[in-house]
């Protein structure tokens, strides 16, 4: 009882813009009677809250019932949208469109305070800088202290030594597939390719290569100094893109190019894997191959240049 009475007493026309919630419920923001000129319907808010009731119950039931994401989320969305609609409508239409006017605060006009603050700071600075030697020492010691903390970065990662320049390929490393199956001279027919790794290092991302059998394709250009690198028409290129390091995974049989799926850098397999389209600036490094006495494919050595994306001291 007390609450109901209290509400009537507390209706403050200044706080509610001359139209208390109860007035608005009766549809009279301007003091008009029901369905008078200013009458605003309350049903949209009611509908919203009913939707929230249904949505809330539906959400709980579908959760307990382990229903699909669509039902669960649909009910939850309905519950949120319903009450959101009701409150937005309430604030926009039912609470009365009270418009009030007031001054903007005007900062920076406190000239006296500004002068006093300036004086105070000035004095503080003087107290410190009066000691010339100490001031210099403070700046120096403080600077050295801050710089000394940089060593902490060393805990986060090693300084790169040779890891960016070398891979797991060594002279005589035998080629295997991702599943560890050895690659022999009979593994590929001309015009086909596979992805290979050095034996024992199939988890080495740096060492992945695209192994392609060119066969006796007359279009294939053997570059100077690489005459012995492609025995029996086998040729191998690093599979790490020289642009941003993605695996150059797409092989286009017609154009005889490798395309990187990340940024579409395109490398010409017939001409030393030179970039012919897209954003890469350097060729895919070629791995010198050999075929051993058992007919297995091996590497003559590691790559002769760093593989993958460029870095500052690579050149």
């Amino acid at each position, binding site marked *: 009882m007390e609450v109901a*009475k209290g509400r009537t007493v507390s209706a403050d026309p200044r706080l509610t813009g001359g139209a208390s919630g109860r007035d608005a419920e009766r549809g009279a923001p301007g003091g008009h009677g029901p369905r008078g000129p200013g009458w605003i319907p309350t049903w949209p808010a009611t509908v919203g809250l009913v939707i929230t009731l249904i949505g809330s119950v539906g959400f709980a039931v579908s959760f307990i019932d382990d229903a699909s994401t669509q039902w669960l989320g649909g009910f939850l969305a309905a519950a949120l949208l319903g009450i959101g609609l009701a409150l937005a409508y309430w604030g926009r239409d039912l609470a009365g469109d009270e418009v009030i006017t007031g001054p903007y*605060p005007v900062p920076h006009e406190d000239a006296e305070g500004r002068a006093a603050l300036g004086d105070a700071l000035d004095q503080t600075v003087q107290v410190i800088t009066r000691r010339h030697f100490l001031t210099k020492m403070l700046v120096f010691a403080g600077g050295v202290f801050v710089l000394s903390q940089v060593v902490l970065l060393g805990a986060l990662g090693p300084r790169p030594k040779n890891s960016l320049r070398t891979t797991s390929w060594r002279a005589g490393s035998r080629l295997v597939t991702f599943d560890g199956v050895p690659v022999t001279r009979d593994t590929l027919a001309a015009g086909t390719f596979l992805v290979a790794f050095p034996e024992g290092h199939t988890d080495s991302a740096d060492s992945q290569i695209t192994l392609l059998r060119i066969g006796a394709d007359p279009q294939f250009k053997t570059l100077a100094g690489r005459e012995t690198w492609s025995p029996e028409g086998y040729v191998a290129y690093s599979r790490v893109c020289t642009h941003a390091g993605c695996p150059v995974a797409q092989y286009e049989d017609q154009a005889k190019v490798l395309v990187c799926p990340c940024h579409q850098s395109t490398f010409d397999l017939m001409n030393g894997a030179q970039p012919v389209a897209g954003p890469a600036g350097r060729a895919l490094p070629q791995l010198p191959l050999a075929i051993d006495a058992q007919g297995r494919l091996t590497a003559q050595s590691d790559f002769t240049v760093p593989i993958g994306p460029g870095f500052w001291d690579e050149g």
Partner: protein
Amino acid sequence: MSEHRLKKSLGRAFGVAPSPARRAARWLDRNLGGSSILREELRHIFPDSWAFFLGEIALYCFIVLVVTGIFLALFFHASQAVVVYHGSYHPLAGVPMSDAYSSVLDLSWNVRAGLLVRQVHHWAALVFVAALIIHLMRMFFTGAYRRPRRINWLIGLSLLLLVGFNGLMGYSLPDDLLSGTGLRIAFSITESIPFIGPTMASVLFGGDFPTTGIIARIYPVHIFLLPAAIAGLLGAHLGLLWLQRHTEFPGPGRDDRTMVGSPMVPQYALRTTGYFLLLAGVLTAFGALLQINPVWLYGPFRATDATTSAQPDWHMGWLEGAVRMFPGWDIQIGGFLLPAIFWPAVILPGLIFTPLFLWPWLDWMAMRDNQFVNVLQYPTMRPGRMAIGAGFFTFLTVLLVGGGDDVFANVFGWSLPVLLRTLQILVIVLPPIVAALTYAIARRRSERWLVS
């Protein structure tokens, strides 16, 4: 009998006891004081315009992200220890994968409401950045960055950077194929920085890519460090907004010293609470009905796998486009190499954000106008600014299209190299054309402003 108790008894006897609200006010005054200030603040004025809702969308997205993020954190494992998957998603049964990826699969398939919450989280992040960018555009084109709101412009821009970066961190956490590919590219970009690049990449990632500790390293950054920084800056942003009051559009009775609008209580508070719930409802509906980032389809990250048509989240698209469109101009200097990716991925973002940060001061220098203002300008009132803004956003839009060039080429059956070359030309030619056209149109309109 004390006066207080006498009044209370009389109040009871005559049925005029204090209402709960009055009792709450009394409790507040006794325990905290400052009732008259609070009374004033209830009447805090909020000028009305649909355009002022954009920043609120961003704020409410942040709230949704925190709530959904806490739920997700309860189930996510920030570990790259290898496990063999035996969960409910059968196509991946028996596949070795990181604990992190496996926990995201469990969260999506086995935790009730898990997929819903994950998808709402992702949608909220995407809408968050969109709202921030549109909010920034509104600020820019209406001159809201002018004195005394320059500092708040800086805070807002910093928020955009932090939020965008945290989006990238979130994209990286599930350790699916796309997140690993994104990290691989981030590593390569870091490596390209002159002098410090390789060391910096190693320090950030804990060694040469791929490292086994990167998820554990990103996790606290994504769920604590950046959210705390974002919350702090949001607090400062809103605190300044509260102290300085909101700007208003020109109108009768409004000037730089007088504001007109709704009182905070009850109209504005009811409305904005309603809008918050409506936004939460829309994001929930997105999460329920629109699939986003189905990580189970991509598979776990392996450094030897790659996928076509891979896309970053939309707000990284301009950067992706720049990286795709910039020619492969690797430069050899003496014994050193400056990789081409350095220019689009490191220099370009700097070129884009530096003038944005300096803009309020550039504007001041150009206009020689250091007035203290509270009334906004309509965009066409300043044709020069409108032209610069239109050219700037055209440039970013062409880059964004470039980020999906392979997808567009596939969908429309265009030749990718031709499309790429077209975009490379457009990104240079189109911004000045759009700027000139905008200037001409805005100029004609601005004459109308001068008349009125």
